[in-house]
């Protein structure tokens, strides 16, 4: 589904990703862990097409297509979703309206029929139940005045409605208390399916107690230096990132 090969990327002239390689198959959940500054958020931003990230070498192939050649909206329509670390507040744009516009824009781009507001409302109601999100949030402007937990849940809710094939969760656990973390994780777990893959980017192992990954990769200095199963996360938690340096050779690990 996703094949990242030898990816190099720069931000403001500074090389952040230095030869990252990773393969994700349908239905797999991959956790990307790493210390601050390792390039975790850069990876999510490069994959979703944010401006200001310059890819200098390597390739990203998504379902056989050169992902990096697509505009952000085309990536979304192709099924790539980024749950933001810092969801953006958009005053004046109603949450429901925003989501319907996005939903229909994606359907239109894929040549599918759009939903009218009644049909869409029905869909939203169903998803709200699953995500345990209050109806009231849907009447407000996008993320405006939302608490940290509400913003993150809104991200997962958008994901539930848009039903991506590849979801990238960028430090979705940051700023969440344990209850909010559980709620968000439950939402994510409800969306796991054999067709949907996840890249869960996080600094802490804690999130992975709730979203149990198939693979764990350690990102350090712009490359994946260690890959393993979920037990790797526990080792990291126990020994810290410093342990890696002593533990073994950095390797361009493949899942």
């Amino acid at each position, binding site marked *: 589904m996703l094949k990242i090969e030898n990816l190099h990327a720069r931000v403001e002239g500074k090389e952040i990703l230095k030869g990252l390689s990773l393969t994700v198959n349908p239905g797999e959940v991959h956790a990307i862990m790493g210390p601050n500054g390792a390039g975790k958020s850069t990876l999510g931003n490069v994959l*979703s*097409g*944010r*401006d200001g990230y310059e890819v200098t070498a390597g390739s990203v192939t998504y379902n056989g297509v050169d992902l990096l050649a697509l*505009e*952000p*909206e085309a*990536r*979304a*329509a192709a099924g790539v*979703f*980024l749950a*933001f670390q810092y*969801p*953006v507040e*958009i*005053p*004046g*744009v109603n949450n429901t309206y*925003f*989501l319907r*516009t*996005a*939903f229909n*824009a*994606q359907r239109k*781009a894929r040549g599918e029929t759009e939903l009218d507001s009644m049909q869409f409302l029905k869909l939203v109601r169903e998803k709200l139940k699953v995500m345990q999100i209050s109806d009231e949030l849907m009447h407000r*402007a*996008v993320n405006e005045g939302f608490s940290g937990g509400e913003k993150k849940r809104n991200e997962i809710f*958008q994901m539930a409605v*848009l039903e991506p094939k590849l979801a990238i969760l960028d430090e979705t656990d940051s700023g969440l208390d344990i209850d909010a973390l559980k709620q968000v994780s439950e939402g994510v777990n409800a969306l796991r399916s054999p067709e949907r893959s996840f890249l869960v980017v996080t600094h802490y192992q804690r999130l992975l107690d709730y979203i149990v990954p198939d693979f764990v990769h350690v990102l350090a200095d712009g490359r994946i230096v260690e890959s393993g199963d979920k037990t790797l996360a526990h080792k990291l938690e126990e020994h810290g990132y410093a342990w890696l340096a002593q533990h073994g050779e950095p390797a361009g690990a493949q899942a």
Partner: protein
Amino acid sequence: MSESAVPFVASTLAVPPPSSGIGWLDEARRENLAAFGEAGLPDTRVEAWKYTALRALSQRSFIHGDAQAATRDIDPEAFALPGLDGPRLVFVNGVFRGDLSDLSALPAGLALRPLSQALAQDAEPLRFALARRYKERGDAFAQLNAAQAVDGVVLRVAADAKIDVPVRLVFVGVAADAELAWHLRNVIELGEGAELTLVEQHVGSGNARQLGTLVADVVLRDGARLQHIVAQDASADATLVHRHALQLGARAQALLHVLELGGALVRHDLQADLVGNGARLDTRGVFVPRGRQHIDTQLAIRHQALNTTSDSTWRGVADGRARGVFRGAILVAPGADGSDARLNNKNLLLSGSAEIDTKPELEIYADEVQAAHGATVGQLDERALFYLRSRGIPLAEARTLLTAAFCRAVLDDLPNATLREHLASLLAIRLPV
């Protein structure tokens, strides 16, 4: 070059002002015209015209008044507002058109008629408004209007009358053979405790390369309440200079919504005097110059009594090589203690060649005053744009969505839902993509 050699001034002075046969009125017309002839059009050294140059206008010659206005073919669709039935006065190129107007079934307490009729019947009640001499350096168009306007609107609401249908004033500009100037004068008064919703529409049809001036006095007696909507969507070639002077008595409340969308060169002076204790004025406005449009709004609010309140929210969006000007001047006069004055103007530049000049001014000479004012000029938020695109919304659509959202605050508190929808869709059509 003397002022009378300027084509605009020369063409104006070439014919004597219209005669009404009413001594005091003809005298006022002559004197205002003489004052105009002496000073001419203001240049950008005059503070009130600092950002609006009239050089190009001054080189044009105009014929004052359209002799064929009564028979020009007008499609009423141009100003239709479905779902809003009520009395309506329609003017075409400055001339009253009874055939397009609707003055049947006026609600009790509402007196509404064209100025020309009111003058013919009993001019005396209009003397205070129409005998005025305009003397300020920036008043050229008011002088011109006072000299030339032979028609307009006279609207009075009797004390305690609550008019429950919106009254519409429609100003249509259509192309004429010559470059045409038209002038209208509106006199509006709400008696004590009266209530009214007033909708002013400017629409253009065809390439009307014309000048329109409109001067309105709006008086709210104690406890009166006015909702006033100005939807300016004049033709792309039009020059429009309009002025509203409001006066609010004790506990009177006015809520204004202004959309400035059309016209090539538009100047709007919005002046309000809060002269009675506890008066309240809310203004909401948006100006959207595109292409090479120039739209200048001059808001001046004077708090002159105890515990008066003003709250103003204005948005500007400029695209292409367009220019927007906003001046928001608030004065809290000595003795207007306990007043509350708020003004906020945010502006959005959608192109590198567009320009918006905004100037909030606050002068406070009273005690225990609460005041806040601010103005910003910026671009669309890149983070918000990316957020929308990352969800699948194409760039152009994302820009439109954010631009419309930026303007939304201006229409949010318009109580009449039908009207709000009309204005929102009018705005949506005119917003740059």
